[in-house]
């Protein structure tokens, strides 16, 4: 009885669906978190009577045939690249990207990671770093005697130094974008890594070549919509139940069979 294993694939798929929804809800307040969406596809089909075969020697063609599907599989869990809301923090090193692009972060092993989470701070040397102390590329060092730091929409870091009239430009933050953002590998900590699927990073300054503008003192919130997640959760749970009903029915039918004389 194939119905048993077909329903089992359905239950497994819905279980994975619930896992993705729960991860979205858990990250509802994670800065720059992009919600995940599950994508399902039907499995292979078994042709019991092939469409297009002839039903007799007069050449009459079977119009539809008998095809029995073998269930469902999880095809992808992909990130939805809708921008989240911006929230004001008034922290001079909190940056939000309005539009396309990722900040580039130098990892301890020398690789470059990418993130949209712009909660940055200064380390002991005055470099702009993430929460974990990883340097934001290109490494910009704010001098000790800076009174005030302002980062403009093009990513230029301007400092006010005691005794100088104008602001001093000490560097420009660079952003990266990818052909296939969905192909980036999430490694936790709001960081993504380049993969063969994402393509090589294209770097540039904010506000140029399609890159978004930077906004100082703001952070991008997660783009999780709790109402949508809860309705997804309900539909996943009900679909799970329905598939378990199929298993029970198939079981009952087999027991009918066993009780035949």
């Amino acid at each position, binding site marked *: 009885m194939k119905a048993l294993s077909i*329903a089992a694939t359905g239950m497994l798929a819905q279980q994975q669906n619930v896992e993705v929804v729960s991860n979205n809800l858990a990250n509802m307040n994670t800065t720059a978190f992009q919600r995940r969406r599950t994508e399902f596809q039907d499995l292979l089909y078994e042709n019991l009577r092939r469409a297009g075969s002839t039903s007799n020697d007069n050449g009459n063609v079977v119009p539809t045939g008998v095809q029995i599907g073998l269930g469902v599989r999880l095809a992808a869990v992909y990130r939805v690249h809708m921008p989240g809301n911006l929230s004001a923090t008034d922290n001079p090193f909190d940056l939000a990207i309005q539009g396309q692009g990722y900040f580039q972060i130098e990892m301890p092993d020398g690789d470059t990671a990418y993130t949209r989470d712009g909660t940055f701070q200064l380390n002991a040397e005055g470099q702009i770093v993430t929460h974990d102390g990883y340097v934001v590329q290109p490494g910009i060092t704010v001098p000790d005697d800076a009174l005030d730091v302002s980062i403009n929409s093009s990513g230029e870091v301007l400092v006010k130094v005691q005794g100088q009239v104008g602001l001093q430009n000490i560097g420009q933050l660079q952003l990266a974008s990818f052909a296939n953002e969905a192909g980036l590998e999430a490694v936790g900590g709001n960081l993504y890594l380049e993969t063969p699927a994402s393509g090589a990073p294209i770097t540039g300054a904010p506000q140029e070549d399609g890159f978004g503008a930077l906004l100082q003192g703001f952070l991008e919130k997660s783009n999780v919509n709790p109402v949508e997640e809860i309705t997804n959760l309900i539909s996943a749970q009900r679909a799970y139940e329905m598939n378990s009903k199929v298993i029970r029915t*198939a079981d009952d*039918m087999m027991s*009918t069979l066993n009780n035949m004389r």
Partner: protein
Amino acid sequence: MENGILVGLSRQSALRRDLDVVANNLANVNTTGFKRARAHFESFVPPQPAAGPRGGRPVFVRDVATVTDTAPGRLDSTGNPFDLAIRGDGYFVVDTDAGPRYTRDGHFHPDQTGRMVTESGEPLLSAGGQPIVVPLDDGDVVVASDGTVSTNSGPIDSVGVVRFDRPAGLRREGTGYWSADEKPAPVPAPEIVAGSLERSNVEPILEITRMIRVHRAYSQARQIVDQEHDRITKMIEIYRA
């Protein structure tokens, strides 16, 4: 003599197929672009033997087709600009190693070279039958409701949508794909909704009631077999006496 048992048996094996189809529909209740299937049964009357007693002939059941219900599924907004849904008749064309495949699952994304591809990496074809390549540094890519793909510098291509005169001839290939022997015709004015995906058109209520009916019919078929068994036993006893 054992016709009753055989008729009951044909009913039971048909019902098992029916349950398999229902199970597949329910398993795909959240599958993008999925179309529900129905098993279609037909009576089968074996030819009258030339010699032998005349009388009522047994009527067996056999499954002749699984019919696809091509009713549209509801559209679900995803906010992803490359998620496309077709309103009304039509299929997207995807180029695979095995030839063109047709799908209603409009979840595409650009690959590392900028081609718009499906989740399995096969390119979506334009109205001209070529893969659609989107430039990576020209602002947001927008798909208009008539299928025109444009960037900041204007239209670059248009998404191909085709239809079939005989959609019943489409074969399911899994992963949301269909194949066809018939050559499709382009839809002159397709209506595409970008940022949305078409959900499965499976109606859980219909499937569950179908499942209950299958379940009950299966028990009834068992009773036919049981009663036939009783009848034969009784007949043997009478002959013995």
